[in-house]
């Protein structure tokens, strides 16, 4: 059944080209309906291959060390689930939201290219192929950030573009370094070569390690490489903010870091410490900067940096419990941050502003949006029984049980900081005195409400049934990360 794997990139790319051609004749309905069908078909394929074990597809019939392989293991299927579900909800949301831009054609073309790139990054088993898909996703996202072509959007997009191009150069340089040592770009083959020849102290590999940390760290938006993130996330149209914050920084940043360091190069104490340090700085900087923001979307963007810090700390600690916490937090963050960016888009669409100081008392005018964003805020702030509480609890417990007591303290502190700035958001937007500008505000259309309700229900259910999710989805993915040899032998067939 492994012949289904290339479809994850092939279907969106063909759909994008088809939309570009047929969309010339039917500008309005064809792009959005066709991209909805594309996304549905991807979800269907994912359901077919779900939990069927590790699948290897050799592109063109070339055996692994020579040809490009696509690998679907439990970690890939976990990421595919996040990417495709969030993309599906975003397409539903864009159905109404993008009306004001009056151009579905280019939006959905770029969107599907970005989706194809992300699916490719998740599925590929080849380092250079990873770079190619990463560039497809990145270039599409640069264009989508500047989609509105206003001055601020172009500025944000250009900053993102320059830093993204820098990251790509670093990643390619790192891949070149790895090739110079091992003579291969296949991930499993590189990993086998490094283990067999005991190269963990090799200087060229150390340089590649540094280049990958900078490159993927830039894509993940971890401090000190976060300069592009708040601008890009707040200037992009709301559906793109959702994709950037909910999926893109996780796939191109965190997933790639996990794959490269846990499955290929092998994690060393130095790298773990770098992850933990970057994670702690990200958590604190994101949380403190989140306080000072008046713009709702900028606040969410800084909070994304802060939550990425939690995930980085989890993968830095590296014990199975910490990895479980990190992956669970990754899943949860995709849920509640997408929900919050959806609600910010709805609020901006209805009221025309997203400044906390100008809003207030939306709970009577927009009951569903308010309820959803309250659930999102409580989840991200880590209030039981919502999902954010459990993943943060697991990461904190993992930090204490691994002996990082100061780290556990900082994690708890950041959780309180997060709670306080989200309470400020609630007080200024949802509750409090109704502001004058919301007099004529009405609830958003159904197509925009639906994705928010779905995600809000997910936040609640993932909190209540956390043990089911951890046992059935997270632990299989975690076992791939912590057993490097299993990955190598399953790809190379040894």
């Amino acid at each position, binding site marked *: 059944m492994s012949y289904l794997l290339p479809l994850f990139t092939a279907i969106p790319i063909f759909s994008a080209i088809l939309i570009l051609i047929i969309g010339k004749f039917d500008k309005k309905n064809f792009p959005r309906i066709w991209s909805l069908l594309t996304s549905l078909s991807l979800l269907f394929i994912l359901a077919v291959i779900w939990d069927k074990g590790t699948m290897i597809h050799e592109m063109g019939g070339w055996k692994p060390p020579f040809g490009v392989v696509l690998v679907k293991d439990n970690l890939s299927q976990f990421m595919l689930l996040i990417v495709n579900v969030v993309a599906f909800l975003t397409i539903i949301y864009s159905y109404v939201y993008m009306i004001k831009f009056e151009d579905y054609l280019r939006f959905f073309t770029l969107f599907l290219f970005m989706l194809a790139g992300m699916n490719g990054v998740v599925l590929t088993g080849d380092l250079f192929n990873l*770079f190619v898909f990463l*560039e497809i996703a990145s270039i599409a996202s640069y264009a989508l950030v500047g989609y509105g072509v206003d*001055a601020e959007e172009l500025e944000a997009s250009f900053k993102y573009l320059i830093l993204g191009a*820098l990251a790509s150069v670093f990643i*390619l340089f790192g891949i*070149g370094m790895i090739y110079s040592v091992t003579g291969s*770009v296949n991930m499993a083959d590189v990993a086998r070569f490094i283990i067999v020849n005991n190269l963990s102290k090799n200087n060229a590999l150390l340089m590649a390690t540094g280049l990958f940390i900078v490159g993927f760290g830039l894509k993940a938006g971890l401090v000190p490489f976060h300069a592009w993130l708040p601008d890009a996330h*707040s200037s992009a149209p709301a559906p793109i903010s959702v994709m950037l914050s909910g999926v893109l920084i996780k796939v191109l940043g965190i997933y790639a870091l996990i794959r490269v360091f846990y499955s290929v190069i092998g994690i060393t104490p130095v790298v773990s410490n770098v992850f933990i340090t970057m994670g702690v700085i990200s958590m604190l900087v994101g949380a403190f900067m989140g306080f000072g923001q008046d713009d709702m979307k900028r606040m969410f963007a800084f909070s994304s940096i802060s939550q990425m810090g939690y995930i980085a700390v989890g993968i830095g600690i590296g014990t199975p419990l910490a990895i479980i916490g990190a992956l669970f937090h990754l899943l949860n963050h995709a849920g509640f941050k997408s929900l919050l960016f959806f609600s910010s888009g709805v609020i901006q669409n209805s009221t025309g502003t997203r400044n906390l100081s100008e809003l207030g008392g939306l709970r009577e005018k927009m009951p569903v949006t308010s309820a959803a964003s309250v659930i999102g805020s409580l989840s991200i702030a880590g209030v039981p029984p919502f999902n954010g509480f459990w993943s943060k609890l697991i990461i904190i417990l993992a930090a204490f049980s691994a002996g990082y007591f100061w780290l556990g303290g900082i994690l708890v502190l950041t959780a309180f900081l997060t709670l306080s700035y989200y309470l400020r958001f609630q007080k200024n937007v949802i509750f409090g005195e109704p502001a004058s500008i919301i007099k004529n505000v009405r609830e958003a259309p159904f197509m925009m409400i639906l994705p928010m309700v779905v995600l809000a229900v997910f936040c609640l259910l993932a909190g209540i049934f956390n043990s089911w999710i951890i046992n059935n989805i997270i632990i299989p993915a975690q076992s791939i990360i912590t057993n490097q040899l299993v990955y190598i032998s399953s790809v190379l067939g040894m």
Partner: protein
Amino acid sequence: MTLYFLNFVLLIIGLYALVVKRHIVKKILGVAIMEYAVNLFLILLGFRKSGIAPILTEDMDLRTFIHTAVDPLPQALVLTSIVIGLGTLALMVAMAIRLYERYGTFDMDEIKRLRG
């Protein structure tokens, strides 16, 4: 070794232009120089002095082929990466033109409506 060192100098020149220069076009040139430096690095990995093209013809001895042919894989990689670089460059130039229309300047220090 000298070649690799000079290659690294080229990369640093690009990084310098990207970080220090304020003019947008110079920043774009910096990115382009960095991309070329990395492409050159990949090509150098497969480089062999007075090597032959990696095409095995019938009248060729396999042993001499292995010892004289250059490594073809980096060339294939570089071809892909040049195309990607072209896409990025085109997008950057288009952005620069649009930015000039909006702000009336190419100076990155004056293009700062977004905070931090």
